[in-house]
């Protein structure tokens, strides 16, 4: 481990980068959208409500002291603030700036495209350890599919980035063309915490505290997981896998107990779900380890591992620069060397086919 708690040499599956402002994206946008951004005074909120500059989760105290509270917007910043310290084997960059709340599907598509071009130019071509999630419009499946078709062959992209909050659950049939396009290009899917604000994020009205919003990512991720299985996504796309990112994982075993039990009663409603839901989830999902939210003692942690059926679905992430105030290290300490290597490197490498990905070269 590094001085700041990074697992050295790991495949780190959730690192954040973001443009500092729309000015960073203007080179990748048409004249029309540049004018729109200016005239409409569009703010690059991205996930401002998710990581407000002063919020505890946004960055560690040390990072804040050094003026590093926002995600890096240049390669030099990424190197200085994270790569040099963590020395990862590979990194998956997540840029959440496309999670915005505006409803204009055409703008949303244009921004997603600009973000992907910006990420390629700014990061992927600079360092062959870097991989990235591919941004798509969260409000237009057609445009999302088109964007995957446009840049999905770039070996730097490993997965399609979806916000965990959505208008319709992601497993819905309206999204299946997007999954087809992803699989054709050997891309997986990431469900990342946060996403569209503007609607309440619980089934019971608007929350009023950040703590509720923060923790709501977990029940929402659970609902999305149900959808992928019940809508038969994995029957249609047997090679598709989903990385649940920054939504926790300790909730998984007990959800699957319920999901399996209920399926046993009402499978007739979804007869294409032929296997136990837990079997689909075990084959197709992985979850990142930040936040960890572990049991407070070793016994509980050992039990959690037992309930999970082992660490095979867990994939290490530092979630730089975010700070959840905890660490997965106590759980890793309980693992054999082989299992540890699984969580830190091998599971992610297999998930993303990292050995098969050519070293990045400029487009």
């Amino acid at each position, binding site marked *: 481990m590094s001085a700041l708690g990074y697992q050295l040499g790991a495949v780190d599956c959730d690192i954040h980068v973001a443009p500092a402002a729309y000015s960073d994206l203007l080179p990748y946008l048409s004249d029309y959208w540049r004018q729109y951004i200016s005239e409409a005074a569009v703010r690059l909120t991205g996930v401002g409500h998710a990581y407000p500059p002063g919020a*505890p989760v946004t960055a560690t105290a040390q990072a804040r002291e050094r003026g590093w509270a926002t995600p890096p917007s240049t390669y030099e910043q990424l190197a200085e603030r994270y790569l040099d310290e963590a020395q990862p084997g590979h990194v998956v960059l997540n840029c959440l700036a496309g999670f915005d709340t505006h409803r204009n599907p055409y703008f949303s598509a244009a921004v997603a495209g600009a973000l992907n071009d910006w990420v390629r130019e700014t990061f992927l071509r600079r360092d062959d350890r870097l991989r990235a999630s591919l941004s798509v419009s969260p409000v237009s499946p057609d445009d999302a599919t088109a964007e995957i078709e446009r840049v999905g062959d770039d070996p730097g992209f490993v997965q399609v980035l979806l916000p*965990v*909050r*959505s*208008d*319709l*659950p992601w497993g*819905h049939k309206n999204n299946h063309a997007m999954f087809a396009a992803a699989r054709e290009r050997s891309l997986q899917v990431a469900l990342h915490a946060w996403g569209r604000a503007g*609607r*309440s*994020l*619980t*089934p*019971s*009205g*608007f929350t*009023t*505290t*950040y*703590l*509720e919003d*923060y*923790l*709501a990512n*977990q*029940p929402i991720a*659970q*609902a*999305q997981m*149900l*959808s992928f299985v*019940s*809508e038969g996504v994995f029957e249609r796309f047997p090679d598709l896998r989903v990385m649940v990112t920054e939504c*926790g994982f*300790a*909730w998984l*075993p*007990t*959800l699957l*107990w*319920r*999901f*399996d039990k*209920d399926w046993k*009663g*009402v499978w*007739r*409603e*979804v007869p294409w779900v032929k296997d136990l839901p837990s079997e689909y989830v075990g084959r197709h999902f992985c979850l990142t380890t930040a*936040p960890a*939210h572990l*049991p*407070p003692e070793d016994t509980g942690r050992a*039990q959690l591992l*037992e*309930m999970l059926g082992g660490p095979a679905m867990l994939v290490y992430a530092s979630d730089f620069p975010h*700070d*959840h*105030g*905890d660490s997965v290290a106590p759980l890793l300490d309980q693992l054999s060397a082989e299992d540890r290597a699984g969580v830190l490197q091998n599971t992610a490498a297999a998930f993303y086919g990292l050995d098969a990905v050519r070293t990045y070269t400029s487009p």
Partner: protein
Amino acid sequence: MKLIDCDVHAQATEPMLAEHLGPWARAQLERYGRRTPRTTDWYPRARNGGMRVDAWPDKPGHIWGSDPELLREQLLDEYDVDYAILEVLSGQDCYDHPDFAREWNHAINEWQAETWLGFDSRLRGTIAVAHEYPDLAVKEIEERADDPRFVAVLLPASAAEPLGAPKYWPIYRAATECGRPVVVHTGGYVDHRGAGYPSFYLDYHVGNGIVTQGQLTSMVAGGLFEEVPGVRVVLTESGVAWVAALRWSLDAAWELMRADHPRLTRPPSHYLDEHVWFTTQPIEEPEDPSHLVYAIDQAHLRDKLLFATDYPHWDFDSPTQALPRVIDKELRRKILCENAADLYGFPRERPEPAATAGVQAS
């Protein structure tokens, strides 16, 4: 004491409730019916119509759960129940005009009192309230407070605002002031806005176990348990195994964000220990039953679990079959009756056999 069933559904037909409505509300019902869309229409219950097929009474005008005699036969006598607590859900999704909501919930309680609570001394009721109109809800609670056969106040697990919101505090306060716990039961107007509306009853049903996580978070974060120090909440029909992971998350989040929550003087897990109970049905069934015991112990639930059958719903838990063998004798007794006896103030010992004519309202 052997068995206290903490979630039983007496179900009225509209004509049965209409009998207890005033003329204006009755006319509204006849003209427009119930205006709120029912989740049973969005998500038809894909197995057995959502109910035990054998629980349909052989009496004209009756439906599942409307006939006290059948309920007595199939539940109270069949399983030798000491007490059964009725939750009548007809008002949970009531988003009608407040005047109608008030009368509708009042009618639910009148129907309980007249049809059920006098019928068998083992039956107890829960006070249905117009929850979106707390002033009206408080009035209804105060009206029923002197009838000891009503043992709790009933809220739905989904409402217009999260259940920890200050809007609803008067309801918790009124319940606590008259010594009643608040039963928060799955259902209500479930507006799936986090991930969007699922397509299937399967997702909706599993979702019942997910929705309550947010509600518990709201109650903790909003400071309900400091605001109403004696409040007792019974999370009902949400399952139990998920609680531990939420406890860990709540405590971790609070560590990080304590400064945002000056009302909270203790960690969230402390408030759960002091204020929150859970009914067992639908009890989760891990492949390794000892994992269920892990989940119970990790969440400190030994004194907090209350057995429930959920009669007459299709996923009813049989009192003789539903608890896995791995649950030790002492824990089994707590779950089946002792925890509920302590919560509701029932005597720990079964009273001498009496006539089954019901307890009178005082």
